[in-house]
């Protein structure tokens, strides 16, 4: 089965979802991502959904779960690139995606990630 690629960029993980995901693929993404956060000790996760023409309650729940799981693993998550039609539909659907930080594009998303990572964990031992 195909898997969605996860790129490592320094202490961040970048995921670009470009296919119409079936449920099993979404679940395997969740598994792969949490696994990689641990193995790479990533501090931030950026999920690019700019190619998604639709986000339903299952995918919305997946994003919220990824954000929550990452936080438990001491990483911040930002979802970027939500399309207007998708956002309007999610509002109509009544899905708030509480707990998921969003940004308009990858650049803004990275800025947000940096700020959030800096803003917490100042008692962590600094990395070289």
């Amino acid at each position, binding site marked *: 089965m195909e898997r969605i690629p996860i790129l490592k960029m320094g202490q961040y993980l970048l995921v670009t979802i470009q296919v*119409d*995901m*079936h*449920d*099993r693929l979404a679940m395997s993404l969740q598994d792969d991502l949490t696994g990689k956060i641990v193995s790479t000790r990533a501090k931030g996760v950026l999920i690019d959904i700019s190619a998604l*023409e*639709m*986000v*339903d*309650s*299952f995918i919305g*729940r997946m994003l919220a779960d990824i954000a929550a799981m990452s936080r438990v693993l001491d990483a911040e998550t930002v979802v970027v690139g939500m399309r*207007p*039609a*998708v956002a*309007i*539909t999610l509002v*109509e*659907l*009544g*899905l708030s995606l509480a707990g998921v930080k969003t940004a308009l594009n990858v650049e803004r998303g990275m800025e947000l990630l940096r700020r959030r990572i800096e803003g917490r964990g100042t008692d962590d031992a600094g990395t070289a």
Partner: protein
Amino acid sequence: MPVLLSEQKPIETSEDVVAIRQAVRHRAIELGFNLVDQTKIVTAASELARNTLQYGGGGTLVLEGVQDGGRKGLRLTFEDHGPGIADVQLAMKDGYTTGNGLGLGLSGARRLSNEFTIDSRPGEGTRVTIVRWR
């Protein structure tokens, strides 16, 4: 009301759910829906198709292009012969508050559609019909 086109799709695997999203999108575009309305009906279809698969044990979708007076619409009928739902109203209310898949999918699909009807009998199955007008 006159039916302009009719298509049937199986719902047996999660790949079928993906195929259904694409088929519904395609038909919606053909019927001239704008982007937001397309997205709404595709999302509703995804919710209901998933319900049919996960809770209904698999089933079918019938897509129909319909016409009522001057307006055109897309009618989707999801049917399964699964366990059925004992109390639909409760499921939809609960689903919304607890985030349970079945109820959430049903209430979500209703919010995204212009018309929504559900017929479910425990032990026999469930049929959900939604319509979105252009």
